[in-house]
């Protein structure tokens, strides 16, 4: 939440800075034009004064401020009466627009490209001399005035560059924080696993052995009860002892840190085997079972453990459909991974429970241990695979197990 707020604030600030940079850049052009216009008006006034004081216009030849590219005075016939290049005085300006209509009182201005390739600012204004009216064409260099545009461009580029760098840094920091968070989560999980391991060992020693004795004696009593009603009690003791034994076994398995022995095997074949094991139970519950399995989806792992995962998933699916439904098994491959999925049409899992389903000891069943899915995830991760669960209440649940394919594995499609 805090991270999202910081990113949103950063985005808002970036947008504000971008708007500021764009605004600043857009304002630079008109400011440069205004500077050039002011300069042109000042120079026009100076030229006007010189022309009034010296009707021969000879003094104008010495008037060469550095900002002027050239200037000229043209009469009604389009002849240069004065030009900063003296060779052109008396020649035709060749300006057809001027011949068609002498400009009015309002000066005009535009950016032009000179024959040299230079971009210049051209200012044209009527010049009212005592004897006649001429047109003053003043062309200015723009380098100094355009410094505003260059500075704005530089500032914009620097601002955008800095924004880019800041966002890259933010991305790096966020990524590091995310990795650290994941690492800490993993460390916490490993620590809890270690604690479970110690507890499991203790359970094995302190509970399992006495439990075996209790179970054995109860079985004896069940077969030869002193009183007929004791047979039922003994049955209950045996059933509860079996459940406790199962819990201890799962706990030991979950807490075990011993790496499983691995070999290549066909995931489709294991799935078929598990489906066959559960077929009687499915039949009793009125569940329709379908299998869609590709042939020879060979994975690298421990066959027994994967079978245990699929068995757990299958049992969970059947338990979710006490009044019948549909159970779909599918096995295939995607890229470098084998994918097995178990889909039921049962009661589904409530949205708020979904994030916790793989946590140890979390269960929604009255007599569940809460270790089944946790164990499935542990086994999947031991095989460099992953397990994902999607569910919608009253629609069903789909669990997908992804495992790395055996390097020599092949896939051929078939369905049943």
């Amino acid at each position, binding site marked *: 939440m805090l991270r999202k707020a910081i990113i949103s604030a950063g985005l808002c600030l970036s947008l504000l800075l971008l708007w500021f940079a764009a605004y600043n850049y857009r304002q630079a052009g008109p400011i440069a034009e205004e500077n050039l216009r002011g300069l042109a008006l000042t120079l026009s006034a100076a030229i006007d004064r010189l022309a009034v004081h010296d009707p021969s216009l000879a003094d104008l030849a010495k008037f060469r401020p*550095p900002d002027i*590219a*050239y200037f*000229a005075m043209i009469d009604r016939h389009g002849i240069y009466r004065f*030009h*900063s*290049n003296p*060779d*052109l005085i008396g020649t035709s*300006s*060749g*300006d057809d627009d001027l011949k068609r209509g002498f400009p009015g009182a309002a000066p005009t201005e*535009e*950016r*032009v*490209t*000179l*024959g*040299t*390739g*230079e*971009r*210049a600012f*051209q200012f044209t204004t009527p010049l009212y001399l005592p004897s006649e009216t001429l047109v003053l*064409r003043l*062309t200015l*260099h*723009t*380098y100094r005035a355009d410094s505003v545009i*260059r500075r704005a*461009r*530089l500032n*914009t*580029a*620097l601002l*955008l*560059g800095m924004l*880019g*760098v800041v*966002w*890259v840094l933010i*991305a*790096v920091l966020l*990524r590091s924080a995310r990795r650290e968070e994941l690492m800490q989560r993993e460390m916490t999980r490993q620590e809890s696993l270690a604690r479970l391991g110690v507890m499991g060992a203790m359970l094995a020693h302190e509970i399992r052995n006495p439990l075996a004795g209790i179970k054995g004696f109860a079985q004896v009593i069940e077969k030869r009860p002193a009183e007929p009603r004791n047979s039922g009690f003994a049955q209950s003791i045996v059933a509860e002892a079996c459940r406790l034994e199962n819990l201890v076994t799962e706990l030991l398995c979950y807490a075990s840190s011993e790496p499983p022995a691995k070999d290549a095997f066909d995931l489709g074949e294991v799935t078929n085997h598990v489906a066959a094991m559960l077929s009687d139970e499915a039949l009793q519950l009125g569940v329709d079972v379908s299998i869609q399995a590709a042939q020879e989806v060979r994975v690298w792992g421990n066959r027994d453990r994967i079978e245990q995962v699929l068995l757990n998933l299958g049992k969970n699916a059947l338990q979710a459909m006490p009044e019948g439904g549909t159970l779909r098994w599918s096995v295939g491959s995607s890229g470098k991974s084998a994918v097995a999925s178990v889909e039921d049409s049962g009661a589904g899992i409530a949205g708020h429970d979904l994030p916790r389903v793989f946590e140890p000891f979390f269960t929604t069943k009255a007599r569940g241990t809460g270790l089944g899915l946790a164990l499935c995830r542990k086994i999947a991760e031991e095989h460099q695979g992953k397990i994902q669960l999607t569910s919608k209440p009253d629609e069903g649940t789909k669990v997908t197990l992804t495992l790395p394919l055996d390097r020599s594995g092949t896939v051929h499609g078939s369905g049943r």
Partner: protein
Amino acid sequence: MCKDRVIFFMLLTLCLNFLAAGSACAGFGFGGDNLGKSGLDFSKGYDVNTVTTVSGSVLTSPRTEENGNVFVDIKTGAGVVTLSVGKRSEWERKELQLRPNDQVSAKGSHAQGKDGKTYLMVQKLDNRSSGGQAVLRNERGGPAWMGVNSGGMTGSPGGGMMRGGGRMMR
């Protein structure tokens, strides 16, 4: 994780690319075309409107820069002016020696580049120290290295000679 890394590097590459583009822009907009950092057309450009004569002392020996053109800096009363004396081959053919501190006089079309320097596209150059002289363009700016009939002599715009205020931009 691998996908994240690819996205991160793509993002980084984009940012670096953007920064590189930004740096180019930060160079006051130079270098965006094939005219070099001055933005002037030294090969064919000339404008009779801006023709002037400058005099001064040579600061540097001739050097070849933008698009094989030869340049010489001279110090005048109004500051440093860079003379553009045409293509290297044509300049060598003229056999006009210019050494630092030589007093020269040059006539040509002056222009201000995007780099802020003042250039003169020389039509005629006179080395008053050695007495040598070179005509590099015709009177209307047609460069000698573009052929005899180049420039305004035939009325074609080959020399880039401009009258009437240049090409309008808008």
